[in-house]
């Protein structure tokens, strides 16, 4: 392989194993083709990896029980761990807050005594309504769609998000009147 095409011919003329230009180029071609094929195979394998055979995804819609299960004036954390939501009931009705801080995505805590959500990561604070008022969070907590199912239970749909800064909290689906 140690071909030296630039060397004067006299030095190597006796050895017949000198590589010709054509031979060198075709070896090079094979090598590069093999290399490109290996890279392509790697890329395919990586892409395949992105689509796992089994995917654990909790359902995006769930039933959260009857409206009567939620007391007026409480922030319910029963589905915080399983579905990542706070269910809040006030005088007018029920809304569902997404338990993801709008700053960088930590899970805020509900502090009953202080009557606020407080994020332990950088200290953002949110009112019971989800409006941000302390710390760096730039926007209020988001709300999920909430409707009544046919059997009278609350149905929470996490695929639809309502953002206050876009004026979406006035949408009827973001709030369940009871």
């Amino acid at each position, binding site marked *: 392989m140690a071909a030296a095409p630039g060397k004067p011919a006299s030095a190597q003329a006796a050895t017949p194993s000198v590589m010709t230009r054509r031979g060198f180029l075709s070896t090079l071609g094979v090598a590069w083709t093999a290399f490109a094929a290996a890279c392509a195979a790697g890329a395919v394998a990586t892409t395949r990896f992105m689509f796992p055979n089994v995917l654990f995804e909790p359902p995006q819609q769930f039933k959260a029980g009857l409206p009567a299960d939620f007391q007026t004036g409480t922030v319910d954390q029963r589905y915080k761990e399983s579905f990542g939501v706070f269910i809040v009931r006030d005088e007018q009705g029920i809304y569902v807050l997404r338990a993801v801080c709008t700053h960088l995505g930590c899970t805020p805590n509900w502090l009953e005594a202080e009557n606020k959500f407080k994020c*332990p990561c950088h200290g953002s604070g949110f009112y019971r309504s989800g409006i941000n008022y302390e*710390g760096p969070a730039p926007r209020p907590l988001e709300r999920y769609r909430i409707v009544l199912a046919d059997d009278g239970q609350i149905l929470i749909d996490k695929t639809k998000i309502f953002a206050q800064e876009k004026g979406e909290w006035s949408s009827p689906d973001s709030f369940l009147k009871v």
Partner: protein
Amino acid sequence: MIEALKHSVNWLSAPPRFFTITLAAFFVLLFPGELGPAWLRRLTRPLQTVYRPKVGGIVFAVLGVLFLASCFDPNFALIVLKPDNVPIAAMIFLVAFFVWFGLKEGRRNDALRAAEQPIIEKRESGDGKVMVWPDLVYTEFLCMILWTIFLIVWSICLKAPIEEPANPAKTPNPSKAPWYFLGLQEMLVYYDPWIAGVLLPGLIIVGLCAIPYIDKNPKGNGYFTFKERKPEIAIFLFGFVVLWVWLIIIGTFLRGPNQNFFGPFEYWDAHKLVPLINVDLSQIIWVKWMHTALPRNPILREIFGLTLVAAYFLALPPLLAKRWLKGYYEKLGPTRFHIMMFLGLTMLSLPIKMMLRWTLNMHYVVTVPEIFFNI
């Protein structure tokens, strides 16, 4: 008596006060007797003596004793002696010592040079050079052995802080990044994630890479000096000690539950109530000063903040070049000066924003939450 002392330390360690003290101490100790009006120079000149080995040693000893004495306070001990915080406590002293040591050697060399005597490095080794073998390799080998022993003993004595299995629905309170990222986490309190997490760290790296191209002063290469590189040393130490190490220290020791600030002798009460209601600059100007509602149009609403930011980055550098930093401008030339100004002003924007947040509860200077744009 002791209680009163603890209370005053707690009071002084509220961030705006603590930061002001740190800044003042930084400049006074870096340039004792050199900055400010004549009376201040006269007042701070005696501090030059801390760079004498004996005085410096006494200062460190006193600080160490104060630190150890503080460990008798249960609240202080609880935080400082936590296994993950022990290295940070050590870091305070290590950083202080090595900064002090470098400045001390630099000043000593400056004095020797002024007296037209050979500098320390020359004296110790004749031509300023030593052999790699055995001088360097032996030292390194010994250090490696000692350090390994030290690490083994440490890992046996202090338990690794391992917690319960991770659970996305349960964030520990307070949640803290690893210590070396606490500066970044602290920045995130004052800025949007895209600034504090992407732009500023990127600029720190770019800025560090740019140092050899901006700073073409060849002096100080291979020997200690202070006089020949004053601005360079001051700028670097400001970024490193005040804006990085200091942030790690407050992030470790003063940030408690809910990311509230606590004094070093204060109990970390998860229910501490701190009124922190944010205001944006647009609210202050439109609502408080002009008594009108916020305009609907985001550009109009944020016009003052946008002007302020633009003036800070675009109008300030030419002004500085014309007035206060004329000599520096001529030394660097326009391109390097403006790159330097951009990096420097970006760096300074952090303490400015921190102060605004601490004193006025300033949320954002420019805020357009609709498109995730907040400054």
